[in-house]
């Protein structure tokens, strides 16, 4: 039994309504332990004053330099004593989940038991970077709690100027759109670079994310410094049975309005069977006895729309791989930047392919470590030095897929034009 609850008239109002209430959860834990009684006290104060009361500090585990988010209360009385002493320390341990965030109940129960013993009883599943967040721990309990978590086979995530915890979509585990083994790619790259996660020494954070197809369910393009997104080079695969099922269920109006006219590059046409065109780059599927839908795959940008609307009827091609985009980040300091293409396509099937991705990732981190300014993300560094310098630093060939359109101004020195053309021609000849 814990001490008496503080009055929380503001938080109490968040216990009603149909959505599950975190306040009800916090109160349940407060029945058992004082840290949560006082956490509720501080949180209620924040609701009244509209001020936050946590400050950071230095708390960690033996052998690592990051992964714990220290929180000490700043809500003090006139004698500089914490107003809510039992929650004066409320640290978080960031723990990396399995890719795809799959759990068996035995594992979740073990986490619950450890946090029952050492923590506040509050676990965030999951943080925005994809961590299991064991929230609310005294400084003294951080090390023993960590040792038990680590003994389960789980490792600490990233914080500060370091490689960060990664995320991948459900992918191969339950999705027909998946174009590569996301979990394998994630583990290959992250586990080869844990030193940069656990001993923060980069200019700023570096995030990898992995999405199995261009639907990008883990938002790698906006939220990661290096996004690995599945795609394919050959023709969209078709399944006539599912296509006819779609047509039966939805009708011609929906096929035209929802599928064909929403193709962003007008790569899809609907034709009478007799007028169907043929060609190596054309996917053709009958939707009824009279009509075929045809996709000119050279015009298709692999946006996923028609595959999403007609699941099973249209599927990614067989020659699968990934596109790599670099430089996604949020607001600080220059404004949000989107990841942009640096590798239009690479295969990701054989162990050698994965090793190549691993090398590219390592080079990416190294280039960032050597060239970024303090507190500068990869996207900002590229904005500062220009994409070409970045590509040359990583020995990546320029490609017209990297731009929306070529340069629209003449302000560039081009006296090496002939040499560059020569390089391009050599590359073409070698390919």
């Amino acid at each position, binding site marked *: 039994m814990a001490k008496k609850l503080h009055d929380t008239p503001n938080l109490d109002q968040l216990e009603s309504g149909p959505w599950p209430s975190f306040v009800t959860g916090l109160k349940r834990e407060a029945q058992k332990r004082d840290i949560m009684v006082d956490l509720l006290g501080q949180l209620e104060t924040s609701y009244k004053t509209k001020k936050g009361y946590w400050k950071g500090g230095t708390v960690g585990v033996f052998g690592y330099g990051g992964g714990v988010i220290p929180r000490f209360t700043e809500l003090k009385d006139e004698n500089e004593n914490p107003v809510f002493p039992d929650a004066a320390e409320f640290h978080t341990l960031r723990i990396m989940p399995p890719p795809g965030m*799959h759990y068996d109940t035995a594992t979740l129960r073990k986490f619950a038991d450890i946090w029952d013993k050492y923590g506040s009883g509050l676990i965030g599943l999951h943080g925005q970077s994809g961590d299991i967040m064991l929230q609310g721990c005294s400084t003294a309990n951080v090390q023993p709690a960590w040792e038990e978590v680590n003994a389960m086979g789980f490792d600490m995530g990233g914080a500060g100027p370091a490689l960060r915890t*990664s995320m991948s979509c459900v992918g*191969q585990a339950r999705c027909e759109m998946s174009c590569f083994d996301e979990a394998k790619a994630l583990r290959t790259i992250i586990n080869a670079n844990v030193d940069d996660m656990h001993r923060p020494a980069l200019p700023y954070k570096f995030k990898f994310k992995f999405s199995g197809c261009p639907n990008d369910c883990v938002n790698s393009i906006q939220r990661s410094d290096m996004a690995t997104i599945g795609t394919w080079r050959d023709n969209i695969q078709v399944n006539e049975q599912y296509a006819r099922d779609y047509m039966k269920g939805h009708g011609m109006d929906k096929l035209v309005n929802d599928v064909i006219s929403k193709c962003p590059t007008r790569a899809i046409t609907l034709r009478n069977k007799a007028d169907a065109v043929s060609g190596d780059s054309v996917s053709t599927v009958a939707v009824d006895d009279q009509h075929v839908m045809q996709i000119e795959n050279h015009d298709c940008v692999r946006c*996923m729309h028609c595959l999403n609307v007609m699941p099973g009827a249209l599927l990614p091609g067989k020659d699968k791989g990934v596109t790599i985009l670099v430089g996604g980040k949020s607001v600080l300091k220059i404004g949000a930047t989107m990841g942009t293409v640096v590798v239009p396509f690479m295969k990701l099937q054989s162990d050698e392919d994965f090793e190549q991705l691993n090398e590219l990732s390592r080079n990416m981190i190294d280039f960032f470590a050597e060239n970024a300014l303090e507190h500068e993300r990869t996207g900002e560094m590229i904005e500062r030095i220009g994409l070409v310098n970045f590509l040359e630093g990583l020995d990546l060939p320029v490609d017209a897929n990297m731009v929306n359109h070529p340069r629209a101004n003449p302000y560039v020195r081009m006296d090496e034009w002939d040499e560059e053309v020569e390089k391009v021609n050599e590359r073409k000849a070698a390919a």
Partner: protein
Amino acid sequence: MAELRAPDECGVPDAAPFMHPTLLKNYGKWVFHSHPKPGVLYHRAESGDEVWTVKFGTARQLDLYTIRLLCDLADKHADGHMRFTARSNVEFMVTSESKVDPLIKELNSHGFPVGGTANSVSMIAHTQGFLHCDIPATDASGVVKALMDELHDEFIKCEMPNRVKLSTSCCEINCGGQADIAIIMQHTKPPRINHDLVANVCERPSVVARCPVAAIRPALVNGKPSLEVDEKKCICCGACFPPCPPMQINDPENSKVAIWVGGKNSNARSKPTFHKLVAAGLPNNAPRWPEVAAVVKKILAVYKADAQPWERMNDWIERIGWPRFFEKTGLPFTKFHIDDWRGSRTTLNASTHIRF
């Protein structure tokens, strides 16, 4: 003191031992999915194996009773496995259709809303707020709870033109991320500086370097080394506050809520987009933020009524045009909506394309 154990630097664990056995067996071999009803996904593998996924919402910040309850329910209904989505929803996988309804019934009886699939309003991506952040202007879990109470029907019903993703962020750093509708704190006054503390707490050159508009400079104030802000230049972004807590940016009255729409990370149809400012100046009105909820619901109602099937928020606005977005939602278009940050000229209308 007991001897400290050196960490086992084991990295990310293999997902295979944790995965539902049917997912593991058919890894990489799925061929079809459908959406039988709100909150339920159906997947079929090459082998003919089938799974029904039941998706439901949680508070994200989970107490141990809830975690153990989820485990009990997964043991009873879903072969002892579950997975979490990037938006903190939980997914239970079952291998026969007959198990779906009893599972939904039991989840509902414990207060878990089943939904969040396909063309629904999904759970709001959010951060820590007052609960655990060191620089929040508002709460995160509370805003989400208050809003999801209001949007509960849209979560469980799947009646939107396409999926709608929401996020909240407790400051302009926007940890909640890009979204169809993003709710983000926006400071409106420059930081108030406690000059007694700056020299001891802040590494002054790095604070100067953080400012996006070079408005901060070192200064001697009352004989102490400190920092000063050129308030004419200051854009009140709060970037100086994390490295220098004595530069207090949070303000109970003047830190307001802004609303942004049309962010999308998927490549489907249009290229990915960033969300755009549509409303601001809303009060940080804990514990239920009714003014924010009203604007969000208004935007959602107009989108729901006006967008074509499969149009995401940005696709819809792309079709109808921004002037009509403001007309239809009744939100005022002000001078603050016209961008003047770097690259802003490309956001201006360099054409006579005007809808009348």
